[in-house]
Structure formats: structure tokens, C-alpha cells
């Protein structure tokens, strides 16, 4: 319901028409200048898989791919996404039946408990493994350093990433 993002007559707000491709689908929307990209994805496009944890760029739960790079969607405005391509966790699985190897590895290694930080981690690691297909453990931990998890203690997530890297290479 994009009524949420369209400004009423407040003095300083303005609206912008944007076209943004998300998970391969182009969306044309009118957004208020200050609408955060995270809110746009979650509430305007109802792609609620991207989660919000802090709104100041610390926790990583809102991480999405922006033109292929992992970014914090809470630190961008929807208006900035005009003409760009975004991938969210909803765009990760290969299809309805088949999970992405990253998702499978997380499941197989119990890399999630409550699952709230998980989408952010998946998108971070998707970008990382695309660039570094044969990481060592130190590199995996470095890549994960911008994502917080309060449930798992990270060990299983690191294992899942190593397993995913291995499976992706096959």
C-alpha cells in the first residue's frame, strides 16, 4: 500500500517517481524523499524478508544486494534506487522447490535459530562468495563481521559458509 510513502501536504517533503528492479522484476512507484530503502522494500513492495534491526547501519539485518554489492538498506533512501537493481532474500532461492546452496548450508549446519538476522547474513555472504569462492576461515569471519546475531554464537554460521563455498565450487 504505497499510500504510506506518499507525502501529504507537509512543507518540506517531496515525492519522486522511481523505477527499481528487485529480484528481476521492475517496479514503478512514487516515493517520499525520506522513505528508507528498507521500509520501501518491506512495506511498499511487501518483500518483508529483509529485516530491520537498528536503522543506523550497525546490525546488518537489512543487508541487500544493490547492483551486486552488499549494502545496508536502512542507510539508503528508496529514491536513490531509481534505475538500479536490488536482490533481496526472496530472490535467492533457485526456484520454489530449490533453495540456494547458501540457504541449504545454513539449514544443514543449524546456522539459524530465530532467523531474524538470517536474510542479512545470506545476502552478505552471497556477495562475498561470488567474489571469493575459496575463502579460508579468517576471510569468512571477516566477511561476517558486519552482521550481528544474538542467538547462535556464529560458529554454525561460519561452518555453513564454508560448506556453502565447498558446494558452490562443485
Amino acid at each position, binding site marked *: 500500500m504505497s499510500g504510506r510513502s506518499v507525502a501529504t*501536504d507537509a512543507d518540506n517533503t517531496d515525492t519522486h517517481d522511481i523505477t527499481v528492479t528487485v529480484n528481476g522484476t521492475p517496479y514503478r512507484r512514487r516515493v517520499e524523499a525520506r522513505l528508507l530503502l528498507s521500509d520501501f522494500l518491506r512495506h511498499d513492495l511487501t518483500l518483508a*524478508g529483509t529485516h530491520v534491526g537498528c536503522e543506523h547501519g550497525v546490525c546488518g539485518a537489512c543487508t541487500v544486494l544493490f547492483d551486486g554489492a552488499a549494502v545496508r538498506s536502512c542507510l539508503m533512501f528508496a529514491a536513490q534506487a531509481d534505475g538500479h537493481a536490488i536482490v533481496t532474500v526472496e530472490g535467492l532461492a533457485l526456484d520454489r522447490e530449490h533453495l540456494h546452496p547458501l540457504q541449504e548450508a545454513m539449514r544443514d549446519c543449524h546456522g539459524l535459530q*530465530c532467523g531474524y538476522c538470517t536474510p542479512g547474513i545470506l545476502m552478505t555472504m552471497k556477495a562475498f562468495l561470488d567474489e571469493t569462492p575459496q575463502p579460508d576461515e579468517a576471510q569468512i569471519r571477516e566477511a561476517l563481521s558486519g552482521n550481528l546475531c544474538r542467538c547462535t554464537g556464529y560458529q554454525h554460521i561460519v561452518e555453513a559458509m564454508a560448506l556453502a563455498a565447498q558446494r558452490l565450487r562443485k
Partner: protein
Amino acid sequence: MATRNFGAPIRRNEDKRLLTGQALFVDDVELPGMVHAAFLRSNLAHAAIRSIDVGAARARDGVVAVYTAEDLGPYWAPGPLLVPPPPIAGSLFHQRTQVPLAKDKVRHVGEPLAVVLAQSRYLAEDALADIVVELDPLPAVVDLEAALADDAARVHEDLRGNVAAHVRQTRGNYAAARARADHVIGRRFHYDHGASSPIETRGIVANWDARANQLTVWDTTQAPVFLRNGLAAMLGLSERQVRVIAPFVGGGFGPKIMLFYPEEVVIPWAARKLNRPIKWIEDRLEHFFATTQERGQTHDAEIALTRDGRILGIKDVFLHDTGAYNPYGLTVPINSQCTLLGPYVVPNYDSTFTAVFTNKPIVTPYRGAGRQHGVFVMERLLDIAARELKLDRAEIRRRNFIPPDAFPYNNEIIYQDFAPLSYDSGNYEPVLDKSLAMIGYERFLAEEQPRLRAQGRHVGIGVTCYVEGTGIGPYEGAKVQVQSNGKVSLATGIGTQGQGHFTSFAQIVADQLGVEVADVDVVTGDTDQFYWGAGTFASRGAVVAGNAVNEAAKVVRQKILKLAAEHFECAEQDLEIADGAVSVVGVPGQ
């Protein structure tokens, strides 16, 4: 019947939804006509409210309503006492619980003063800046000892001071034990304040449907049944009219079982008043002072020992910071008081605590719920004793363990479940031995540590032993059903914040009914699906709800066997259930 599933490694039923972003969390709920709430919160720890002017906020475009304490009328009331104090002789307890919106004064930073409802959270936050509040600052009560001084400012002026509670529990005669002791060690220990910070903050969506006469509430709560009961009572509704759903919750850790938070009380009321769905999502900044916290104790503890390190007695006098209000009664400090005893024989114990009101956020259970404070004190005392008596730290613990033939072992003092603290079983020494062997304790002390120290590196090893009372009552329930399509469903009243209930409870049912774990459809935390229970806290879900699930599944199993026996015209013992079907043993095709 062999246990095929329970205890075996398995993939979780819920993971696919969580991994593909298809799991519903409270902020994912979207309803037509929904309005968004933002709370104006005090930025002073202690102040008298002179006035709150919401006129400009109400006039702002996009604002639907603004409410203060006055607007709540007779609905405004301090919240219920969630846990009454256990019946401990001679104890003192002053109940002062949190209020929906502050009236007359504010008692901690973050206490809500007003709520704005608007077309978006963005607009609601804009309107917060329109509200003019006049606060007269009062001295803030922060330090626990200063709070008890005669001239300290009072958090609750109708009380004579800031004492929220005073409890003393004893066992044996500590003074006599001390007089006999070869060695006495006394220390002061501080345990600081902390916040739980789950990655998902709190949130609530309330939808009052006037025509259906139904209130639906999505809440990040760990106790949907209690919340349903309380809201129904407060709003004058029948329990049947209120449905509370705790969907997927992004981490609980304790503070999400605090109930009747101001927001939880205000939002449903406002939803009924406006006849519009209302959503409030706590942001991270708010979380640090709007959600309950834990810790904050100062202990003056003393241990009396024989020269060979055996405990003759312990005395502990401690202050507990309960924050501005005490809705959770004495649970946290009682846990500290009781868990201090640990797996040790402490024949004489004298423990006194004073819970102190301060101008800080409320303290309620969080991960450990006060137990770790007691453990910290005991384990530090033992470490210091080991050093002074020149004993190995593991050895001094070994010498004090309750021996395996002494169970059930009654510590006599009253625990948070209102009964004397009694350990039903235990065999501690082999556990310690095995742990020490697995971590290479001896080798570390003899070789690694000296080697590292020679390099100028200070590396240590810690040993801590404790006993945790879990499986807290009173009860949980479960409903297991074989549907007309042959599928099995399970519903239980507790909620899930990552514990894996969708899988672990399915395993229990699968074992009883011979179906695949992935084929058991589990619902947790929805009061319409299962009507009664307590909640997910204190490490009790698997024990209490799990057993309820098992009992319910057993009944269903018996029904299946009875029906099948009638169908096959055989005895129940001749039947087996596996792979979703009942068959007659040894007779293929049946």
C-alpha cells in the same frame, strides 16, 4: 516402540520459511487502514510533569490521534503484579508497577508520556516534536547505596524510602559456623546493568474488528496466553473475543516475557477507540530504555571455611536494583539468593537482600534471571579461597560437592516457585572430571600457562559450577489432532523465539504416531489454536510443553490403535504404526 526421531540430528521444519524470507514477524503484518504509533518518552530520569500540550501535534496533517494519561480515563491503571512474592516469613514487599502513560511524574528515561497515531511512523515521529512537555527535574536516584540514604529523593513518594523489598533467608546458624571457621573471606562484588538487545525489537499490532466483535493482537511476546487474559480483563472483553498471536519472534531472552508493558496496554485500547488497526514497532534507540533490563546488584559476601577448604557457611547481604517499578516481584533477587548455593553443601547460610527502586528502566528476568549473580559471588569466593588456602580451584569445588548419595537434597530456603529449594538428583564430580579432561585443564596449568606467561602473555582458565532450576511450572498443554486428510497437527500455548519448537515438538509427535517429522504441522503461540498455558521462559518449554505434547500424542496413539484393532479385528498388541500407516505385524497388505 523405538525412538526413531527424538535425539537424532535433524533439519528444522521451520528453516525453509525463515531462509526464504517467508516467515511472519510482527512488523510484517499489514492491514488495510493501519495507523502507526510513536511514543513520546521522557528524556529525564526523574521529574514532575507540569504540563503536556498535544494541541499542535493533533493539528498536524496525517496525525489521527494523540493521547496522554488523561485521555485513557478509567482505563489508566498501574499494571498487574506478574509474580507475587513467595511466602517467606518476615519479608517486606512494596508493589509499585508501571503505568500505561506517565501521570504526575516520570520515573525513568524512556517512560512514555504520550502516544501519537499517524498515517506513517515517519509522520508520527514528526508529530512527537510538536508536543510541548514541561518537566520539573527531580534528583535522580541511581546509586543503590545512595538510594537508601535518609535524605535520598524518593522514586515513589508515598513510600518512606526507596526500599522495594527486603528478604532474609537462612539455613542453620551462620554466626556459629563463622566462629568455628579456620578461614573467613569477605568481599564486595558488583554486577552491572545490561540490556538483552535481540536483533528484533519489540512490537505490537492490534486490530479491533467492531463488527466481528473481535480483537486480534500480534505481539513479540513470550507469553501470549497471559497477555490475552490480561487484555481481555482490562478491556472488559471475554477471553474468547481476544486473540493474541506471537508469530515468529526474533529472539526473546526474557524481556519479551515482561507483560503489560505500557505499549501493550495502550495500543489495544487505542485500536478499540479508533476502530482502526494500529502498529507500534520499537526502534533500536527506544529498546535501550523501553524494554526491561537486568543486572545491577552489589553483594557483600562472606565465606567461612575449614583449613582444608570445606564450606562451613556463607553470609551474603546484597542490594538489587529493581528499577523504577517492580512488576516481576522478587523473581530475580530470589534466583540470585537461591542459585548462589550451587552444587555445594552449604550447611549454614544467611542471605539478605534489599531490592531498591531507582530511576532506571525496570528490571525483569533476562537470560539467567538473577541466577548468574549468585553464581558469580559463590564462584569468586571459592576461587579466592582456593588461592588463599593454596588449593587447586577444581579441587576446592570437588571437596564441597553434594555427594551423589545425598539426593534428593533439600536446601530448605524458598525458591521462585514458592517451594523449598530441593535438588531431585545430581552426580557432580564425574561431570567436573570429564569437563576438566576435555579442556585439558591439567596440561594447561602445568605447561601452557607457564609457557605463555614467560612470553609476557596472561592467559587464564576459569571453572564454574552451578545448578539451574528449570522446568518451572505451573503447566503447559498441547493438542494433537489427526485431521480428516490424515495429516497430523499440533498446537501448544507457548511461543517460539528460535528454540526450534516447530521441529522438536514435531519429533515427539512423530515418534508416537509413526509419521515423518516434516509432516507434523505445528502451531505455537496463537491463543485461538491453543487456549491455555504459561509461556516460553526459564528453560521450561521442552520439559513442560514437550511433556504435554507427548502425553497428548500418546492419547492419540491409543485411539489409533483402538480404532485399527476394531477395523482389523485383532488385538492392539498385534499392530504397529510406522510411515503414517497402521499395519498388522507380520501380515503384509494389512
